[in-house]
């Protein structure tokens, strides 16, 4: 091939280096090797009369050769370049002149720890601010009930409540069935099979029912809230609302949070019933306990207190999920990546907080003797 680039060192000629061929992107691997292998020159021009094609990469490589040969003093010159090639060469002459700025270092372990602590503080503050803003919007709505967005709230209720019922019921049914099966299997060893009813009843009504449902809602609806609000933020829809004199909190966030607060106790109730149903079914089919006995034992084992303990937690968990989703949604910046990051953060943080909240409630209910 005649266009194969080459770089020849001339011993006795007027030029120090003689370049030939196509100095273009297609040959870049060969060109890099040629330039790396070129000897350190004392100076003297580079002859480009044999160059058949030149693009920015080729021009830059020549420029680099020229700068290296000059060793700090005046750069080597080019001879024999065609007019169009000369234009390109002068274009790259000015580039990469400045000292590259120091790249920010990754930072030590302590730095990262400090950054995490600062972020945690900022997150807590943002959460409190969101709680305050939503409460204020709620008080304003109580003051002027006509400003309440009923249509939007009902629509959100349909999305996070009604449409979530099938999947919530299915998952909690399976969880109840699994708990019952494991209980029967292990309790059988010391003949305490009938206590499975106590375990399923108390566990489901107090803890598992509401916790599983809250985690599912955080994954299903919290993420959707963050993504919606985030893309609205990206497209300046939230700014548009503000300029129309509307409060984005009361238009967008209050209906969503309220819908969650209403929907989660209902879903927790449905979930608990489905789990008990699953547990009863397994007790009957696997443990040989007839439904009548299961129900009778359940009546002895659980009281309405257990149910209250479970269902009381639901609205607070809903509030946490809604507020975290709103905070993270409003944190979205312009890029698609930031939307994804904030949505992930929303789900992770709300699940974490739901579990922490559950622990706090357990301590609280134990201390008041419920």
């Amino acid at each position, binding site marked *: 091939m005649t266009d194969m680039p080459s770089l020849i060192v001339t011993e006795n000629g007027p030029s120090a280096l003689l370049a030939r061929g196509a100095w273009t992107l297609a040959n*870049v691997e060969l060109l890099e090797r040629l330039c790396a292998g070129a000897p350190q020159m004392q100076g003297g021009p580079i002859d480009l009369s044999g160059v058949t094609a030149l693009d*920015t*990469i080729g021009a830059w490589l020549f420029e680099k050769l020229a700068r290296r040969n000059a060793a700090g003093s005046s750069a080597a010159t080019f001879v024999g370049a065609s007019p*169009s090639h000369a*234009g390109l060469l002068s274009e790259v002459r000015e*580039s*990469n002149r*400045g000292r590259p700025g120091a790249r920010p270092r990754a930072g030590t372990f302590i730095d990262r720890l400090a950054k995490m602590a600062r972020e945690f503080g900022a997150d807590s503050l943002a959460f409190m601010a969101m709680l305050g803003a939503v409460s204020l919007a709620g008080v304003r709505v109580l003051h002027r009930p006509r400003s309440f967005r009923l249509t939007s709230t009902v629509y959100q209720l349909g999305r996070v409540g009604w449409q979530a019922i099938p999947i919530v019921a299915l998952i909690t049914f399976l969880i109840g069935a699994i708990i019952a099966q494991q209980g029967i299997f292990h309790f059988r060893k010391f003949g305490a099979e009938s206590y499975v009813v106590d375990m399923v009843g108390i566990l489901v009504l107090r803890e598992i029912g509401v916790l599983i449902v809250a985690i599912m809602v955080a994954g299903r609806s919290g993420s959707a809230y963050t993504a919606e609000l985030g893309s609205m933020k990206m497209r300046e829809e939230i700014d548009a609302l503000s300029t129309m004199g509307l409060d984005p909190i009361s238009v967008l966030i209050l209906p969503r949070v309220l819908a969650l607060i209403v929907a989660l106790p209902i879903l927790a109730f449905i979930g608990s019933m489905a789990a008990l149903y699953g547990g009863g079914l397994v007790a009957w089919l696997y443990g040989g306990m007839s439904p009548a006995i299961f129900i009778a034992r359940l009546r002895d084992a659980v009281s309405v207190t257990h149910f209250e303990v479970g269902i009381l937690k639901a609205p607070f968990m809903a509030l946490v999920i809604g507020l975290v989703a709103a905070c993270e949604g409003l944190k979205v910046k312009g*890029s698609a990546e930031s939307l994804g990051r904030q949505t992930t953060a929303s789900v992770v943080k709300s699940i974490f907080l739901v579990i922490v909240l559950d622990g706090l409630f357990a301590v609280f209910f134990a201390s008041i003797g419920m």
Partner: protein
Amino acid sequence: MAEDRIAIHVNDLVVGFGERVVIDHLCLDVREGEILGLVGASGGGKSVLLRTLVGLLPKRSGEISFPAFATDEAVGRGVLFQQGALFSALNARQNVQFPLREAAHLSPALLDEIANAKLEMVGLSVEDGDKFPAELSGGMTKRVALARALALDPALLFLDEPTSGLDPIAAGEFDALIRTLQQTLGFTVFMVTHDLNTLAAVCNRVAALADGMIAALGPLPAVLESDHPWVRAYFHGARAQMLHLGA
């Protein structure tokens, strides 16, 4: 010189969506090394024509060829989209490096140097390369997008409304930048624009698209003399008159 070689040859092109025919038997030649500006009504098919030329839309019939190039694959195309279309997950330098990285195997150091050189060619600083698209102003976004379009040294550059959304100073600087780069790098430019200043300052020839066909074609003064009613309305309307008065 190569003034008369044809870079893009469009013959009898028809493009449409469903019932609607947008480009109706259009013929156009773009000469090598020229800057051709395409004007037309909003929704009149300018962007459709551009997207068809770069291969994003299928043509219904007709012919698009690139006679100045040996094969269709050899045609290096760079496209500057109206909103920049920068990849939001990559910073400015990585955006410029992306096509290079895909096209050839370069050492990381060379990749950085080439990207810096491209950024400096379009009037940005090396530090700007670390910024993400969300942190760039409108003018800078266009410049980074231009640097990315030029990454592979294309022979054909397609610009979709390069100066839209820029203030007059930034638009003027961008016009000058395109002109300078075109002179040094020698590519052919096909530009869709509404900016009458850009047409006057940058374009060698102007094509007016009306009713899916080229209604007028030639240097700006010749197009201004055209008798076509839409072309007259476009260049002699109130807004255009203001420009003439100001000039």
